[in-house]
């Protein structure tokens, strides 16, 4: 049982009872259920470990409703010092339970579909594999073999091509030599890692690692924090796949281009905007400042913070497979976050993740809000085009 790996965290959580972890939990905010937030999930996990309860349809549903956003780790969980020790890794506990559920062949249908799609079409949306680079402008001809590669990811490729287009145009403008994996780019495996489908994720990782090696890639850029975490943390630590590649998120890469003077941001973007920290970029990978620094360097931009930002940012609701399996819940969480963005008086909600962008664009449409959601790559391009 994979959950056993987390038994120390589970037991420690069960000795607490403070329930402070509920304060930033986006799912508990919606459901108000005892079972929804970290303490409840760990309560149930201890029952599983002790054989007092088992995976049932309702508990499986609850376990898959967690967005694994990791806000609970920041929400007054154990302070990282004696006599308490480090915070409980509830996303780890949840993902371990999911892996056990998958092993028991009890995977919820919509979640299993992600894995089945990835196997048959190499993307979680079940879109044709040969359309993965359909967005690539005709004139754009990335180098076939280069030490730097842009990994597009399923969501930018099939749902948010404008992010990929912007990223590619920026790199062209900056004179960066890069390659893309074209037909050899498969899903990074992030949605499967987050939902317990580890065997399939490992197949994808092995394939991607081989493709990168074949192209001689030493450095990888991602516009998706899910891909970023997968390559940087999960491939070596969870899946035992070493790529030998240094992975950077586009926010870090863009900041470097701007700092080095390779990319000139000359056109003013005279807008008030607020930045949403994607969970997998912020809390999971601790990248908080680079995207903000990029935005601050765009002339005319007034950056304002939401009441919850940085490590306390509310999740967009799309992560951890929740968007795929529980759309209503995901939409409600996105709507709440959008309201927080609107409270700042900003007209643009900037983010650095295609999942978050999709979630907020949907929430704005449903609520009739005029708030535009843009990826930092799109905003940077707006300014760079003025040069």
């Amino acid at each position: 049982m994979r959950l056993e790996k987390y038994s120390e965290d589970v037991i420690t959580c069960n000795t607490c009872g403070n329930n402070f972890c509920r304060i930033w939990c986006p799912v508990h905010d919606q459901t108000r259920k005892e079972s929804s937030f970290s303490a409840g999930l760990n309560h149930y996990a201890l029952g599983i470990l002790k054989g007092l309860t088992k995976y049932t349809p309702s508990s499986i549903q609850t376990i898959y409703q967690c967005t694994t956003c990791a806000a609970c780790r920041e929400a007054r969980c154990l302070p990282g010092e004696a006599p308490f020790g480090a915070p409980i890794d509830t996303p780890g506990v949840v993902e371990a339970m999911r892996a056990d559920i998958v092993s028991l062949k009890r995977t919820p249908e919509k979640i299993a579909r992600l894995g089945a799609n990835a196997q048959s079409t190499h993307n979680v949306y079940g879109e044709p594999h040969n359309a993965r680079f359909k967005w690539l402008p005709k004139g754009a001809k990335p180098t076939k073999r280069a030490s730097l590669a842009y990994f597009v990811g399923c969501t930018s490729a099939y749902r948010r091509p404008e992010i990929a287009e912007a990223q590619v145009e920026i790199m062209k403008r900056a004179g960066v030599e890069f390659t893309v994996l074209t037909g050899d780019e498969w899903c990074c495996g992030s949605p499967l890692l987050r939902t317990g489908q580890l065997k399939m994720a490992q197949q994808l990782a092995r394939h991607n690692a081989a493709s990168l090696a074949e192209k001689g890639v030493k450095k990888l850029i991602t516009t998706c924090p899910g891909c970023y975490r997968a390559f940087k943390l999960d491939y070596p630590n969870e899946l035992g796949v070493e790529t030998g590649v240094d992975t950077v998120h586009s926010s870090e890469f863009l900041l470097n281009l701007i700092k080095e003077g390779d990319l000139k941001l000359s056109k003013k973007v005279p807008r008030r905007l607020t930045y949403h920290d994607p969970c997998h970029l912020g809390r999971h990978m601790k990248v908080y400042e680079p995207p903000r620094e990029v935005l601050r360097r765009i002339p005319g931009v007034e950056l304002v913070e939401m009441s919850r930002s940085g490590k306390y940012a509310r999740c967009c609701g799309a992560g951890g497979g929740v968007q795929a399996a529980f759309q209503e819940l995901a939409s409600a969480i996105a709507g709440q976050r959008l309201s927080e963005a609107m409270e700042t008086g900003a007209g643009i909600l900037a983010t650095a993740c295609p999942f978050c962008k999709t979630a907020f664009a949907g929430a704005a449409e449903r609520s009739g809000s005029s708030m535009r959601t843009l990826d930092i790559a799109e905003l940077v391009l707006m300014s760079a085009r003025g040069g």
Partner: protein
Amino acid sequence: MKKELPHQLDRILGPENVSDTDVDLYCYSGAPPSRLPRLLGKMVPQVMPDLVVWPRSTEQVAELVKLANKSKTPLIPWGGGRGGGGGVIPVKKGSVVVDTRKMDRVLEVSEQGSFVTAQSGAYPEVIDSQIVPKGFFLPHDPASYWSSTIGGFLSTASAGWLAPKYGYIGDMVLSLEVVLPNGEVLRTRRAMKSSAGPNWNWLFVGAGGTLGIITEATLKIHLIPEERLIRIFRFDDVHPAFQTAFELARRNLNHCMLRVSDPDHARGLASVLGAPDPKGSWLIYGFDGPSEIVNVQDRVAFDIVSKRGGEDLGTEIGRTWWKKRYDYFYGKRPEYRTWAQDVLTTATTFERIEPIYKGLKEIFRKHGSRSAIHLTHILPKGAAMYCIFEFPYSEEGLKLNREIWDDGIRFVHSQGATMEHHHEIGLKLARHMGEELGYGMEMFRMIKRTLDPNNIMNPGKLGL
């Protein structure tokens, strides 16, 4: 539970607010493993509720209570579920847990009247988010601030750090709305005092949801003070620290905080603050309000404490303590988990505090239990004593825990003090309620029988 009840509740509350799923029943039961202290897991029957429901309005609560009363279905009102006494653990088969946390709206904020009216399932930070921008705060700030609801605070007679100046949660009540066991709705008048018969608000404060479900509360709020100053002093021993604190309280300088830690407690406190072992006692006082007044209060208090031998450690360490005030109440990693801790809190008037301190210290020592004691709330009227004691994580340890409680409570009762100042009684201390209340327990039972003849409201709690 009657077969038709789930359908009737679906109709009243909407099916999305009624659950009989095993994951919900498990997480709302007291079945071990429990997030409540392990010792409770050994003491309580393992009963799953039959249903969990989430009403959104007083009307819905009234309707569901009427149905429950008719079918004699036990109801368990649930706030944050954090009370350490097991007050939300179902003990009867066929129970329905009434989770109030979807009743979380702030209904009115009056700046002129300085009050807030909120539904009882509101978390305090939801209230603060509405009143702080207007320059107000709710001065009920206990360790459970981040996990409890307003209804939970009221039902457990909770006490916050700032109680010496602003009062306990019960003192802040201007009016309450309560759904009684027969489904009738009691709404008390919005007034700070009335001579028209008993004050019914106080019937429900600390009643643990046994007499009704609190659905709304109107609470006094205050302007955010310009300044809050907290100063810490060191004394060689606990005796002069106690006596100095009582002197300060008698002078009635309107302190917002006054506390004394014995050397064992001060050592632990200092370690969390990153300060060296004080090898003595700490006295902490706090004043808040306009800076000019705070400065005068501090000067007068400073003179009193200095003259009695207190060594000033300054206000910076006081600020750090305030900032970290929630950081003492967590679970522990295995390397720190050799011993479990429990807490006995008592309260009485000043002249009894030192004898009780010495007596309890001796009881803990006799049982081989390390203890750390501090006076948490020192008011002009008296003081509350918070005794943290340790026992081993084992079957033997659980027996020891029970013996310590029994001896400790027998002793504080012999001294005329209360056995619990501000923690939930629930199931944990239910067996001592008869001793605690004397004939008052019989009165409590009579009131319970009158208001709740079918015993549907949180049965089995507080010794009922």
